[in-house]
């Protein structure tokens, strides 16, 4: 059973977002990590990179497949989770906390309105299964 923490927002492409002031932390959902299997490489964005919402920010790669990570909002990358270089499995083990991927300082907080709530994301997954 996948987890859907209610305080988070989601992209249809399985990224999650935790909002703290004007900084958002981004990772991939429990459903996504489970579908990918053991991660072996994570390609992180550069600190300082300027991203628009929906830009490719990085890549997660498992034995099974490689999957692009998209930025949920526009802004500047202010931090990346360097632990994932040596331990990509953190994303599998703890996708919503220790497995965080990058932090971005938002340009336009209204972009958050375009994201899915946890229950909307969960509903989308249920629909995809049919």
């Amino acid at each position: 059973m996948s987890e859907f923490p209610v305080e988070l927002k989601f992209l249809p492409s399985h990224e999650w977002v935790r909002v703290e002031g004007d900084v958002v932390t981004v990772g991939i959902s429990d459903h996504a990590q489970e579908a990918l299997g053991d991660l072996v490489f994570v390609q992180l964005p550069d600190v300082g990179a300027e991203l628009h919402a929906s830009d490719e920010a990085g890549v997660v790669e498992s034995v099974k497949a490689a999957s692009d990570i998209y930025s949920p909002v526009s802004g500047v990358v202010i931090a990346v989770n360097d632990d994932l270089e040596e331990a990509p499995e953190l994303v599998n083990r703890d996708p919503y906390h220790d497995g965080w991927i990058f932090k971005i300082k938002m340009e336009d907080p209204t972009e958050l309105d375009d994201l899915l709530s946890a229950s909307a994301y969960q509903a989308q997954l249920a629909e995809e299964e049919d």
Partner: protein
Amino acid sequence: MGNKTALYDQHLACGAKMVDFSGWDMPIHYGSQIQEHKSVRENVGVFDVSHMTVVDVSGQEAKTYLQYLLANDVDKLTTLGKALYTAMLNPQGGVIDDLIVYRRIDGYRLVVNCATREKDLQWMRQQAQAFSVSLIERPDLAILAIQGPQAIQKIKMLCPQHQAAIEALKLFQGTDLGEWFIARTGYTGEDGVELMLPNVEVSAFWQRLMESGVAPIGLGARDTLRLEAGMNLYGADMNESISPLEANMAWTIAWEPQSRDFIGKQALLDEKTKGLKYKLVGLVLEAKCVLRAHQRVLVSGVGEGEITSGTFSPTLGYSIALARVPFATQGHVEVEIRDKLFPVKVVQPPFVRNGKKVFDL
């Protein structure tokens, strides 16, 4: 809803993620395929491979039949229980399947792949018409592979009444233990056995394996283990339109005695005369990316090839692959991954032996 082995319920009880494998519901992993891979390299693990096909061949002309059917020569099986690895070719010299054949008291036992079951049986029966031979498929048998440096130790402990027989097993040799058949063969590059036993007995034995600390291993780890060991996967590294000579299987062809004719022999001889166009090589990528089947391999000044099997090697910490490339290829080549070119090193498989890297970079 596909076919199920006798261990289906046990897999679920062990927390398996089940997937479809050629029409069978099989465990891809039980939590982490990388952990499972490591368990086999470092300790011991057990695979349910009951989806594979067991065919017993007996009758007056069993040996003659197999000497014609198979590219390797069963005459090499000079003692009871001895086994060999071979290709089964079509008249064009393409590989119908790869398999292991064991010599037994009443004939021979063949273990062929799951995905090729129908095709293989149809072909074998067709060829059998010219011989006094009988083919009996054995779906009543389950197959377990128990692999790893501690595998033999573990099996001896679980079957104390058969300790001596197990200890005496040489590589590529099998023996009957009552209704069970055990052989020192495997698909991981580690020491260990493959065990064929009645379906009605396998759940109880699986539980004993679990209780004794043997890790259940899924098909995901099976693939990373065999690729590290440089072993081919039928359907990926070779198929009916690929010659064994272009699939790193030349060593499995028994050319002597020259008087032995076998299906596909003439086609292989013609190919040798014309000169081989391709060969199967190992590739190693040290960048943080995974090599995958069908990615293009570019050999500057020579031509192009294709990856046939690729994966991440948990033992090495980077990606490895088998690739079919032009015969003249050597040294450094490039692989195209998602529109970027990555330099890779060509190496002779296997990549890992006794848990360690064997090639020079």
